[in-house]
Protein backbone atom coordinates (compact mmCIF):
# COMPACT_ATOMS: atom_id res chain seq x y z
CA UNK A 1 0.00 0.00 0.00
CA UNK A 2 2.71 2.40 1.05
CA UNK A 3 4.81 1.53 -2.01
CA UNK A 4 1.90 2.18 -4.34
CA UNK A 5 1.31 5.57 -2.81
CA UNK A 6 5.01 6.39 -3.19
CA UNK A 7 4.82 5.66 -6.88
CA UNK A 8 2.04 8.15 -7.44
CA UNK A 9 3.59 11.00 -5.52
CA UNK A 10 5.94 12.20 -8.28
CA UNK A 11 2.97 12.57 -10.59
CA UNK A 12 0.95 14.40 -7.95
CA UNK A 13 3.77 16.92 -7.81
CA UNK A 14 4.19 17.24 -11.54
CA UNK A 15 0.68 16.90 -12.89
CA UNK A 16 -0.97 20.14 -11.70
CA UNK A 17 1.55 22.21 -13.62
CA UNK A 18 1.46 19.97 -16.67
CA UNK A 19 -2.35 19.87 -16.74
CA UNK A 20 -2.65 23.64 -16.41
CA UNK A 21 -0.11 24.16 -19.18
CA UNK A 22 -1.85 21.61 -21.39
CA UNK A 23 -5.19 23.37 -20.97
CA UNK A 24 -4.02 26.92 -21.40
CA UNK A 25 -1.54 26.23 -24.20
CA UNK A 26 -2.86 23.29 -26.15
CA UNK A 27 -6.45 24.42 -26.39
CA UNK A 28 -5.74 27.86 -27.90
CA UNK A 29 -3.23 26.43 -30.32
CA UNK A 30 -5.40 23.55 -31.48
CA UNK A 31 -8.38 25.81 -31.95
CA UNK A 32 -6.33 28.29 -33.92
CA UNK A 33 -5.02 25.41 -36.06
CA UNK A 34 -8.69 24.82 -36.85
CA UNK A 35 -9.18 28.52 -37.58
CA UNK A 36 -6.14 28.54 -39.86
CA UNK A 37 -8.04 26.39 -42.36
CA UNK A 38 -10.85 28.90 -42.48
CA UNK A 39 -11.34 32.24 -44.07
CA UNK A 40 -12.40 34.54 -41.28
CA UNK A 41 -12.66 38.29 -41.35
CA UNK A 42 -13.30 39.22 -37.74
CA UNK A 43 -15.79 41.98 -38.53
CA UNK A 44 -17.86 39.63 -40.72
CA UNK A 45 -20.96 38.58 -38.74
CA UNK A 46 -21.22 35.32 -40.70
CA UNK A 47 -18.09 34.06 -38.97
CA UNK A 48 -15.49 31.65 -40.37
CA UNK A 49 -15.89 29.80 -43.66
CA UNK A 50 -13.91 26.70 -44.58
CA UNK A 51 -11.05 27.54 -46.91
CA UNK A 52 -8.87 24.45 -46.94
CA UNK A 53 -5.23 25.27 -47.44
CA UNK A 54 -5.89 28.59 -49.13
CA UNK A 55 -4.55 30.65 -46.21
CA UNK A 56 -1.28 28.77 -46.28
CA UNK A 57 -0.91 28.88 -50.05
CA UNK A 58 -1.59 32.60 -50.24
CA UNK A 59 0.96 33.24 -47.48
CA UNK A 60 3.60 31.06 -49.10
CA UNK A 61 3.23 32.86 -52.41
CA UNK A 62 3.34 36.32 -50.82
CA UNK A 63 6.84 37.80 -51.22
CA UNK A 64 6.25 40.28 -48.38
CA UNK A 65 6.07 37.35 -45.94
CA UNK A 66 9.56 36.26 -46.95
CA UNK A 67 10.76 39.82 -46.54
CA UNK A 68 9.21 39.92 -43.08
CA UNK A 69 11.00 36.72 -42.04
CA UNK A 70 14.23 38.05 -43.50
CA UNK A 71 13.88 41.32 -41.58
CA UNK A 72 13.30 39.40 -38.35
CA UNK A 73 16.49 37.42 -38.88
CA UNK A 74 18.47 40.51 -39.85
CA UNK A 75 17.25 42.25 -36.71
CA UNK A 76 18.05 39.27 -34.49
CA UNK A 77 21.43 38.71 -36.15
CA UNK A 78 22.61 42.28 -35.75
CA UNK A 79 21.25 42.86 -32.27
CA UNK A 80 22.31 39.55 -30.76
CA UNK A 81 25.76 39.74 -32.32
CA UNK A 82 26.31 43.24 -30.97
CA UNK A 83 24.79 42.43 -27.57
CA UNK A 84 27.12 39.47 -27.15
CA UNK A 85 30.24 41.35 -28.25
CA UNK A 86 29.56 44.51 -26.23
CA UNK A 87 28.19 42.55 -23.27
CA UNK A 88 31.33 40.42 -23.03
CA UNK A 89 33.51 43.52 -23.41
CA UNK A 90 31.71 45.44 -20.67
CA UNK A 91 31.83 42.43 -18.36
CA UNK A 92 35.60 42.16 -18.86
CA UNK A 93 35.99 45.86 -18.03
CA UNK A 94 33.81 45.57 -14.95
CA UNK A 95 35.86 42.62 -13.78
CA UNK A 96 39.19 44.34 -14.37
CA UNK A 97 41.29 44.87 -11.24
CA UNK A 98 42.17 48.33 -12.55
CA UNK A 99 38.62 49.68 -12.53
CA UNK A 100 37.42 51.81 -9.61
CA UNK A 101 33.77 52.39 -8.56
CA UNK A 102 32.73 49.03 -10.01
CA UNK A 103 29.37 48.98 -8.25
CA UNK A 104 28.43 52.41 -9.55
CA UNK A 105 29.24 51.48 -13.13
CA UNK A 106 27.43 48.17 -12.89
CA UNK A 107 24.33 49.86 -11.49
CA UNK A 108 24.31 52.32 -14.36
CA UNK A 109 24.94 49.68 -17.01
CA UNK A 110 22.00 47.49 -15.98
CA UNK A 111 19.36 50.25 -15.94
CA UNK A 112 18.30 49.93 -19.62
CA UNK A 113 17.24 46.33 -19.15
CA UNK A 114 14.86 47.27 -16.32
CA UNK A 115 13.05 49.84 -18.41
CA UNK A 116 9.76 48.56 -19.80
CA UNK A 117 10.26 47.97 -23.54
CA UNK A 118 7.14 50.02 -24.27
CA UNK A 119 8.59 53.01 -22.40
CA UNK A 120 12.00 52.50 -23.98
CA UNK A 121 10.42 52.47 -27.44
CA UNK A 122 8.42 55.64 -26.78
CA UNK A 123 11.45 57.36 -25.39
CA UNK A 124 13.68 56.47 -28.34
CA UNK A 125 10.95 57.52 -30.72
CA UNK A 126 11.00 60.95 -29.15
CA UNK A 127 14.76 61.07 -29.44
CA UNK A 128 14.76 59.87 -33.05
CA UNK A 129 11.83 61.85 -34.27
CA UNK A 130 12.06 64.12 -37.34
CA UNK A 131 13.96 67.36 -37.34
CA UNK A 132 13.67 68.20 -33.67
CA UNK A 133 14.69 64.97 -32.01
CA UNK A 134 17.72 65.22 -29.78
CA UNK A 135 19.56 62.53 -31.72
CA UNK A 136 19.16 64.47 -34.95
CA UNK A 137 20.89 67.29 -33.10
CA UNK A 138 23.61 64.96 -31.84
CA UNK A 139 24.14 63.64 -35.38
CA UNK A 140 24.42 67.20 -36.66
CA UNK A 141 27.12 67.90 -34.07
CA UNK A 142 29.13 65.11 -35.71
CA UNK A 143 28.50 66.70 -39.08
CA UNK A 144 26.06 64.05 -40.23
CA UNK A 145 23.36 66.55 -41.15
CA UNK A 146 19.75 65.43 -41.09
CA UNK A 147 20.33 61.73 -40.88
CA UNK A 148 16.63 60.72 -40.74
CA UNK A 149 17.01 58.08 -38.05
CA UNK A 150 13.59 56.57 -38.56
CA UNK A 151 12.44 58.45 -41.68
CA UNK A 152 15.09 57.06 -43.97
CA UNK A 153 14.06 53.58 -45.19
CA UNK A 154 17.63 52.32 -45.39
CA UNK A 155 18.47 53.68 -41.92
CA UNK A 156 15.31 52.89 -39.90
CA UNK A 157 16.04 49.21 -39.20
CA UNK A 158 19.50 50.02 -37.89
CA UNK A 159 18.07 52.70 -35.63
CA UNK A 160 15.74 50.11 -34.13
CA UNK A 161 18.69 47.78 -33.70
CA UNK A 162 20.42 50.48 -31.64
CA UNK A 163 17.47 50.51 -29.25
CA UNK A 164 17.53 46.73 -28.79
CA UNK A 165 21.30 46.70 -28.34
CA UNK A 166 21.10 49.47 -25.75
CA UNK A 167 18.36 47.70 -23.87
CA UNK A 168 19.56 44.09 -23.79
CA UNK A 169 23.36 44.25 -23.70
CA UNK A 170 23.18 44.52 -19.87
CA UNK A 171 21.58 41.09 -19.67
CA UNK A 172 24.51 39.47 -21.49
CA UNK A 173 26.91 41.54 -19.40
CA UNK A 174 25.40 40.35 -16.10
CA UNK A 175 25.58 36.68 -17.07
CA UNK A 176 29.17 36.93 -18.33
CA UNK A 177 30.12 38.89 -15.22
CA UNK A 178 28.73 36.10 -13.03
CA UNK A 179 30.84 33.69 -15.06
CA UNK A 180 33.99 35.81 -14.65
CA UNK A 181 33.46 36.03 -10.92
CA UNK A 182 33.17 32.26 -10.67
CA UNK A 183 36.71 31.82 -11.99
CA UNK A 184 39.03 31.22 -9.05
CA UNK A 185 41.63 33.90 -8.37
CA UNK A 186 44.22 31.18 -7.63
CA UNK A 187 43.97 29.92 -11.18
CA UNK A 188 44.68 33.36 -12.65
CA UNK A 189 47.50 34.03 -10.17
CA UNK A 190 49.08 30.67 -10.93
CA UNK A 191 49.00 31.48 -14.62
CA UNK A 192 50.58 34.88 -13.95
CA UNK A 193 53.33 33.31 -11.88
CA UNK A 194 54.01 30.94 -14.74
CA UNK A 195 54.53 33.98 -16.92
CA UNK A 196 51.34 34.04 -18.97
CA UNK A 197 50.46 37.41 -20.51
CA UNK A 198 47.02 38.98 -20.09
CA UNK A 199 46.14 38.02 -23.62
CA UNK A 200 47.18 34.41 -23.09
CA UNK A 201 45.19 34.18 -19.85
CA UNK A 202 42.14 35.49 -21.66
CA UNK A 203 42.58 33.02 -24.49
CA UNK A 204 43.54 29.88 -22.60
CA UNK A 205 41.78 30.27 -19.24
CA UNK A 206 39.04 32.89 -19.20
CA UNK A 207 37.24 32.12 -22.45
CA UNK A 208 37.17 28.32 -22.12
CA UNK A 209 35.76 28.67 -18.59
CA UNK A 210 33.24 31.25 -19.77
CA UNK A 211 31.89 29.02 -22.51
CA UNK A 212 28.80 27.73 -20.70
CA UNK A 213 27.91 31.28 -19.67
CA UNK A 214 28.30 32.57 -23.20
CA UNK A 215 26.09 29.75 -24.46
CA UNK A 216 23.34 30.42 -21.92
CA UNK A 217 23.39 34.18 -22.60
CA UNK A 218 23.20 33.51 -26.33
CA UNK A 219 20.25 31.12 -26.01
CA UNK A 220 18.34 33.46 -23.74
CA UNK A 221 18.88 36.31 -26.16
CA UNK A 222 17.49 34.24 -29.03
CA UNK A 223 14.43 33.36 -26.96
CA UNK A 224 13.88 36.94 -25.85
CA UNK A 225 14.77 38.29 -29.27
CA UNK A 226 11.55 36.93 -30.71
CA UNK A 227 9.67 38.87 -28.04
CA UNK A 228 10.74 42.14 -29.64
CA UNK A 229 7.57 43.90 -30.68
CA UNK A 230 7.37 47.26 -28.96
CA UNK A 231 10.16 48.89 -30.95
CA UNK A 232 8.43 48.07 -34.22
CA UNK A 233 4.91 48.89 -33.14
CA UNK A 234 5.70 52.08 -31.26
CA UNK A 235 8.71 53.61 -32.99
CA UNK A 236 8.06 53.00 -36.68
CA UNK A 237 4.86 50.95 -37.04
CA UNK A 238 6.74 49.04 -39.71
CA UNK A 239 7.48 52.16 -41.74
CA UNK A 240 8.69 53.94 -43.74
CA UNK A 241 6.83 51.75 -46.23
CA UNK A 242 7.42 48.29 -44.87
CA UNK A 243 11.12 48.75 -44.20
CA UNK A 244 10.84 47.79 -40.53
CA UNK A 245 8.06 45.23 -40.58
CA UNK A 246 9.45 41.91 -39.36
CA UNK A 247 7.26 38.84 -38.99
CA UNK A 248 6.36 39.74 -35.38
CA UNK A 249 4.70 42.94 -36.56
CA UNK A 250 3.18 41.37 -39.70
CA UNK A 251 1.35 38.90 -37.47
CA UNK A 252 -0.02 41.64 -35.29
CA UNK A 253 -1.11 43.77 -38.24
CA UNK A 254 -2.80 40.88 -40.06
CA UNK A 255 -4.73 39.87 -36.96
CA UNK A 256 -5.54 43.10 -35.21
CA UNK A 257 -5.38 45.76 -37.88
CA UNK A 258 -6.77 43.96 -40.95
CA UNK A 259 -8.74 41.45 -38.84
CA UNK A 260 -7.80 38.57 -41.15
CA UNK A 261 -7.97 36.03 -38.35
CA UNK A 262 -7.76 32.93 -40.53
CA UNK A 263 -4.65 34.09 -42.34
CA UNK A 264 -3.07 35.37 -39.15
CA UNK A 265 -3.59 31.97 -37.51
CA UNK A 266 -1.96 30.25 -40.47
CA UNK A 267 0.96 32.68 -40.23
CA UNK A 268 1.27 31.96 -36.49
CA UNK A 269 1.77 28.31 -37.39
CA UNK A 270 4.37 29.10 -40.02
CA UNK A 271 6.27 31.13 -37.46
CA UNK A 272 6.01 28.41 -34.82
CA UNK A 273 7.44 25.91 -37.29
CA UNK A 274 10.28 28.25 -38.19
CA UNK A 275 11.20 28.88 -34.57
CA UNK A 276 10.24 25.87 -32.49
CA UNK A 277 11.26 23.00 -34.76
CA UNK A 278 14.97 23.88 -34.98
CA UNK A 279 15.07 24.58 -31.25
CA UNK A 280 13.41 21.26 -30.43
CA UNK A 281 15.92 19.42 -32.59
CA UNK A 282 18.86 21.05 -30.85
CA UNK A 283 17.22 21.16 -27.40
CA UNK A 284 19.20 18.30 -25.90
CA UNK A 285 22.47 19.84 -27.05
CA UNK A 286 21.57 23.35 -25.92
CA UNK A 287 20.07 22.42 -22.58
CA UNK A 288 21.98 19.43 -21.27
CA UNK A 289 20.81 20.00 -17.68
CA UNK A 290 17.13 19.95 -18.29
CA UNK A 291 16.87 17.36 -21.01
CA UNK A 292 18.85 14.64 -19.30
CA UNK A 293 16.93 11.66 -17.98
Amino acid at each position, binding site marked *: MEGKKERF*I*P*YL*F*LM*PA*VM*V*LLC*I*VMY*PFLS*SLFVSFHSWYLANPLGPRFAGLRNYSSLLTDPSIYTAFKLAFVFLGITIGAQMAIGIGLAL*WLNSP*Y*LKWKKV*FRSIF*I*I*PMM*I*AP*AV*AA*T*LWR*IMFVGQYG*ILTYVASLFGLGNIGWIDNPSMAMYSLCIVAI*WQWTPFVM*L*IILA*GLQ*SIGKELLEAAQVDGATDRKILHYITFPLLR*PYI*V*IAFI*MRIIFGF*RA*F*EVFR*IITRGGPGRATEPI*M*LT*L*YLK*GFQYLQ*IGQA*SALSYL*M*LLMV*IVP*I*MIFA*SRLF*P*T*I*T*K*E
Partner: protein
Amino acid sequence: MHIKRGQIKTIIITLLCVLVSIVYIFPVYWLVSVSIEKTVDAFRFPPKILFTPTLEHYRALFETRPIARYYSNTLIVVSSTVLLSLLLGLPASYALARFRIKRKKDISIWILSLLMLPPAAAAIPYYLFMRQLGLLHTRLSLIIVYSTFNLPFIIWLTRSFFESLPKEIEEAALIDGCSRLGVLWRIAIPLSSHGIVCSALFCVILSWNEFLFAFILTGLRSYTLPVTIMSFWTDKHVYWGQILAIGTLLVTPIVILGVVIQKFLVTGFTFGAIKG
Protein backbone atom coordinates in the same frame (compact mmCIF):
# COMPACT_ATOMS: atom_id res chain seq x y z
CA MET B 1 57.40 52.06 -13.05
CA HIS B 2 55.03 49.16 -12.53
CA ILE B 3 52.69 51.17 -10.32
CA LYS B 4 52.57 53.95 -12.88
CA ARG B 5 51.47 51.61 -15.62
CA GLY B 6 48.67 50.36 -13.39
CA GLN B 7 47.54 53.91 -12.78
CA ILE B 8 47.41 54.64 -16.50
CA LYS B 9 45.33 51.54 -17.03
CA THR B 10 42.98 52.64 -14.25
CA ILE B 11 42.54 56.05 -15.83
CA ILE B 12 41.91 54.67 -19.32
CA ILE B 13 39.42 52.02 -18.27
CA THR B 14 37.57 54.39 -15.94
CA LEU B 15 37.28 56.97 -18.71
CA LEU B 16 35.93 54.33 -21.09
CA CYS B 17 33.37 53.25 -18.52
CA VAL B 18 32.33 56.85 -17.94
CA LEU B 19 31.83 57.24 -21.68
CA VAL B 20 29.67 54.12 -21.92
CA SER B 21 27.76 55.23 -18.81
CA ILE B 22 26.88 58.49 -20.52
CA VAL B 23 25.53 56.63 -23.55
CA TYR B 24 23.60 54.28 -21.29
CA ILE B 25 22.20 56.85 -18.93
CA PHE B 26 21.39 59.61 -21.40
CA PRO B 27 18.06 58.16 -22.61
CA VAL B 28 17.01 57.75 -18.97
CA TYR B 29 17.91 61.36 -18.28
CA TRP B 30 15.87 62.35 -21.34
CA LEU B 31 12.91 60.30 -20.10
CA VAL B 32 12.78 62.14 -16.82
CA SER B 33 13.65 65.55 -18.23
CA VAL B 34 10.94 65.60 -20.94
CA SER B 35 8.42 64.57 -18.31
CA ILE B 36 9.23 67.63 -16.18
CA GLU B 37 9.72 70.07 -19.04
CA LYS B 38 7.23 72.31 -20.79
CA THR B 39 6.45 70.73 -24.16
CA VAL B 40 7.75 73.78 -26.05
CA ASP B 41 11.12 73.41 -24.32
CA ALA B 42 11.39 69.68 -24.94
CA PHE B 43 11.41 70.08 -28.71
CA ARG B 44 13.51 73.25 -28.95
CA PHE B 45 16.29 73.08 -31.50
CA PRO B 46 19.08 73.15 -30.52
CA PRO B 47 17.98 71.55 -27.24
CA LYS B 48 17.87 73.58 -24.08
CA ILE B 49 20.02 72.15 -21.31
CA LEU B 50 18.76 74.42 -18.53
CA PHE B 51 15.03 74.64 -18.16
CA THR B 52 12.58 75.44 -15.42
CA PRO B 53 11.08 72.15 -14.24
CA THR B 54 7.33 71.86 -14.12
CA LEU B 55 5.02 69.22 -12.76
CA GLU B 56 2.20 70.13 -15.14
CA HIS B 57 2.33 66.78 -16.98
CA TYR B 58 2.11 64.83 -13.75
CA ARG B 59 -0.74 67.02 -12.53
CA ALA B 60 -2.65 66.54 -15.80
CA LEU B 61 -2.00 62.83 -15.58
CA PHE B 62 -3.39 62.44 -12.08
CA GLU B 63 -6.36 64.70 -12.82
CA THR B 64 -7.48 62.94 -15.99
CA ARG B 65 -6.44 59.34 -15.45
CA PRO B 66 -7.15 56.71 -12.79
CA ILE B 67 -3.44 56.17 -12.12
CA ALA B 68 -4.13 54.31 -8.89
CA ARG B 69 -6.23 51.79 -10.77
CA TYR B 70 -3.52 51.24 -13.38
CA TYR B 71 -1.05 50.57 -10.60
CA SER B 72 -3.38 48.20 -8.80
CA ASN B 73 -4.21 46.34 -12.04
CA THR B 74 -0.52 45.88 -12.70
CA LEU B 75 0.18 44.79 -9.13
CA ILE B 76 -2.71 42.32 -9.07
CA VAL B 77 -1.75 40.77 -12.41
CA VAL B 78 1.95 40.53 -11.58
CA SER B 79 1.55 39.14 -8.08
CA SER B 80 -1.16 36.64 -9.09
CA THR B 81 0.77 35.24 -12.02
CA VAL B 82 4.03 34.94 -10.10
CA LEU B 83 2.39 33.33 -7.06
CA LEU B 84 0.41 30.95 -9.26
CA SER B 85 3.55 30.02 -11.18
CA LEU B 86 5.42 29.34 -7.95
CA LEU B 87 2.57 27.32 -6.46
CA LEU B 88 2.33 25.03 -9.49
CA GLY B 89 5.91 25.30 -10.65
CA LEU B 90 7.90 24.47 -7.51
CA PRO B 91 6.39 21.01 -6.92
CA ALA B 92 6.77 20.24 -10.63
CA SER B 93 10.35 21.41 -10.73
CA TYR B 94 11.12 19.43 -7.54
CA ALA B 95 9.54 16.34 -9.09
CA LEU B 96 11.68 16.72 -12.21
CA ALA B 97 14.79 17.24 -10.11
CA ARG B 98 14.30 14.39 -7.66
CA PHE B 99 11.93 11.68 -8.78
CA ARG B 100 12.07 8.97 -11.40
CA ILE B 101 9.34 9.80 -13.82
CA LYS B 102 8.37 8.07 -17.03
CA ARG B 103 9.16 10.13 -20.13
CA LYS B 104 10.82 12.77 -17.98
CA LYS B 105 12.97 13.95 -20.85
CA ASP B 106 10.01 14.48 -23.15
CA ILE B 107 8.10 16.37 -20.48
CA SER B 108 11.11 18.60 -19.83
CA ILE B 109 11.61 19.38 -23.49
CA TRP B 110 7.93 20.13 -23.90
CA ILE B 111 7.94 22.56 -20.97
CA LEU B 112 11.09 24.15 -22.32
CA SER B 113 9.58 24.57 -25.75
CA LEU B 114 6.78 26.64 -24.22
CA LEU B 115 9.42 29.04 -23.04
CA MET B 116 10.47 29.59 -26.63
CA LEU B 117 6.97 30.25 -27.86
CA PRO B 118 7.23 33.56 -29.71
CA PRO B 119 4.55 35.79 -28.17
CA ALA B 120 3.70 37.23 -31.58
CA ALA B 121 2.72 33.74 -32.75
CA ALA B 122 0.74 33.17 -29.56
CA ALA B 123 -1.14 36.47 -29.75
CA ILE B 124 -3.88 35.38 -32.17
CA PRO B 125 -4.54 31.99 -30.52
CA TYR B 126 -4.79 33.63 -27.10
CA TYR B 127 -6.97 36.43 -28.35
CA LEU B 128 -9.46 33.92 -29.80
CA PHE B 129 -9.24 31.77 -26.67
CA MET B 130 -10.06 34.67 -24.36
CA ARG B 131 -12.81 35.81 -26.69
CA GLN B 132 -14.41 32.37 -26.50
CA LEU B 133 -14.12 32.30 -22.73
CA GLY B 134 -15.58 35.79 -22.50
CA LEU B 135 -12.46 36.95 -20.68
CA LEU B 136 -11.42 39.77 -23.02
CA HIS B 137 -10.76 43.01 -21.17
CA THR B 138 -10.27 41.27 -17.82
CA ARG B 139 -7.25 40.99 -15.60
CA LEU B 140 -7.79 37.24 -15.37
CA SER B 141 -6.95 36.83 -19.06
CA LEU B 142 -3.55 38.44 -18.50
CA ILE B 143 -2.91 36.33 -15.41
CA ILE B 144 -3.57 33.18 -17.44
CA VAL B 145 -1.42 34.21 -20.39
CA TYR B 146 1.51 35.41 -18.28
CA SER B 147 1.43 32.14 -16.38
CA THR B 148 2.06 30.19 -19.57
CA PHE B 149 5.34 32.07 -19.82
CA ASN B 150 6.22 32.31 -16.14
CA LEU B 151 5.43 28.74 -15.16
CA PRO B 152 7.94 27.11 -17.56
CA PHE B 153 10.45 29.78 -16.55
CA ILE B 154 10.09 29.00 -12.85
CA ILE B 155 10.33 25.26 -13.51
CA TRP B 156 13.41 25.66 -15.66
CA LEU B 157 15.21 28.15 -13.40
CA THR B 158 14.56 26.49 -10.05
CA ARG B 159 15.20 22.89 -11.06
CA SER B 160 18.98 23.09 -10.80
CA PHE B 161 18.69 24.57 -7.29
CA PHE B 162 16.71 21.54 -6.13
CA GLU B 163 19.16 19.22 -7.88
CA SER B 164 22.08 20.78 -6.05
CA LEU B 165 20.66 20.11 -2.56
CA PRO B 166 22.23 17.17 -0.73
CA LYS B 167 19.82 14.24 -0.86
CA GLU B 168 20.79 13.07 2.63
CA ILE B 169 18.91 15.83 4.45
CA GLU B 170 15.70 15.02 2.65
CA GLU B 171 16.14 11.28 3.21
CA ALA B 172 16.70 11.85 6.91
CA ALA B 173 13.50 13.89 7.12
CA LEU B 174 11.56 11.15 5.32
CA ILE B 175 12.83 8.56 7.80
CA ASP B 176 11.78 10.85 10.64
CA GLY B 177 8.24 10.66 9.31
CA CYS B 178 8.00 13.79 7.22
CA SER B 179 5.79 13.49 4.14
CA ARG B 180 7.11 14.22 0.63
CA LEU B 181 5.17 17.45 0.57
CA GLY B 182 6.56 18.27 4.02
CA VAL B 183 10.08 17.71 2.70
CA LEU B 184 9.45 20.08 -0.18
CA TRP B 185 7.81 22.75 1.97
CA ARG B 186 10.00 22.54 5.11
CA ILE B 187 13.37 21.59 3.65
CA ALA B 188 13.83 21.89 -0.11
CA ILE B 189 12.13 25.26 -0.59
CA PRO B 190 13.75 27.02 2.41
CA LEU B 191 17.19 25.70 1.42
CA SER B 192 16.85 26.99 -2.13
CA SER B 193 14.94 30.12 -1.19
CA HIS B 194 17.68 32.36 -2.53
CA GLY B 195 17.45 30.87 -6.01
CA ILE B 196 13.67 30.79 -5.94
CA VAL B 197 13.40 34.44 -4.98
CA CYS B 198 15.84 35.41 -7.76
CA SER B 199 13.84 33.47 -10.34
CA ALA B 200 10.55 34.90 -9.09
CA LEU B 201 11.85 38.46 -9.21
CA PHE B 202 12.95 37.97 -12.78
CA CYS B 203 9.40 36.91 -13.60
CA VAL B 204 8.08 39.96 -11.73
CA ILE B 205 10.16 42.25 -13.93
CA LEU B 206 9.11 40.52 -17.15
CA SER B 207 5.42 40.55 -16.24
CA TRP B 208 5.44 44.13 -14.98
CA ASN B 209 6.91 45.32 -18.27
CA GLU B 210 4.92 43.09 -20.63
CA PHE B 211 3.25 45.01 -23.42
CA LEU B 212 1.97 42.88 -26.34
CA PHE B 213 -0.61 40.76 -24.51
CA ALA B 214 -1.64 43.60 -22.26
CA PHE B 215 -2.17 45.64 -25.42
CA ILE B 216 -4.46 43.13 -27.15
CA LEU B 217 -6.26 41.63 -24.15
CA THR B 218 -7.06 44.49 -21.80
CA GLY B 219 -9.73 47.14 -21.93
CA LEU B 220 -10.21 50.52 -20.28
CA ARG B 221 -10.87 49.05 -16.85
CA SER B 222 -8.15 46.42 -16.86
CA TYR B 223 -5.30 48.46 -18.38
CA THR B 224 -1.91 47.70 -16.92
CA LEU B 225 0.68 50.44 -16.87
CA PRO B 226 2.59 49.65 -20.10
CA VAL B 227 -0.57 49.76 -22.23
CA THR B 228 -1.71 53.14 -20.99
CA ILE B 229 1.12 54.63 -23.00
CA MET B 230 -0.73 53.90 -26.22
CA SER B 231 -3.85 55.72 -25.04
CA PHE B 232 -2.07 59.07 -25.15
CA TRP B 233 -1.44 58.50 -28.82
CA THR B 234 -4.52 60.05 -30.44
CA ASP B 235 -4.72 60.99 -34.09
CA LYS B 236 -4.92 64.67 -33.31
CA HIS B 237 -2.31 65.01 -30.66
CA VAL B 238 0.42 63.07 -28.93
CA TYR B 239 0.87 64.02 -25.29
CA TRP B 240 4.61 63.47 -25.11
CA GLY B 241 5.02 65.02 -21.67
CA GLN B 242 2.28 62.90 -20.16
CA ILE B 243 3.45 59.74 -21.90
CA LEU B 244 6.90 60.13 -20.44
CA ALA B 245 5.47 61.10 -17.06
CA ILE B 246 3.58 57.82 -16.89
CA GLY B 247 6.64 56.08 -18.30
CA THR B 248 8.69 57.45 -15.43
CA LEU B 249 6.10 56.28 -12.92
CA LEU B 250 6.11 52.87 -14.57
CA VAL B 251 9.84 52.25 -14.65
CA THR B 252 10.86 53.76 -11.31
CA PRO B 253 9.84 50.86 -9.02
CA ILE B 254 11.42 48.26 -11.32
CA VAL B 255 14.66 50.19 -11.82
CA ILE B 256 15.02 50.54 -8.05
CA LEU B 257 14.25 46.86 -7.54
CA GLY B 258 16.71 45.90 -10.27
CA VAL B 259 19.54 48.02 -8.93
CA VAL B 260 19.01 46.67 -5.41
CA ILE B 261 19.08 43.01 -6.46
CA GLN B 262 21.47 43.44 -9.39
CA LYS B 263 23.93 40.81 -8.25
CA PHE B 264 21.27 38.14 -7.98
CA LEU B 265 19.23 39.04 -11.02
CA VAL B 266 20.71 36.33 -13.22
CA THR B 267 21.43 33.75 -10.50
CA GLY B 268 18.76 31.43 -11.87
CA PHE B 269 20.35 31.43 -15.31
CA THR B 270 23.97 31.09 -14.31
CA PHE B 271 23.37 28.43 -11.68
CA GLY B 272 22.11 26.11 -14.38
CA ALA B 273 24.98 27.10 -16.65
CA ILE B 274 27.67 25.97 -14.24
CA LYS B 275 26.13 22.56 -13.93
CA GLY B 276 25.60 22.26 -17.68
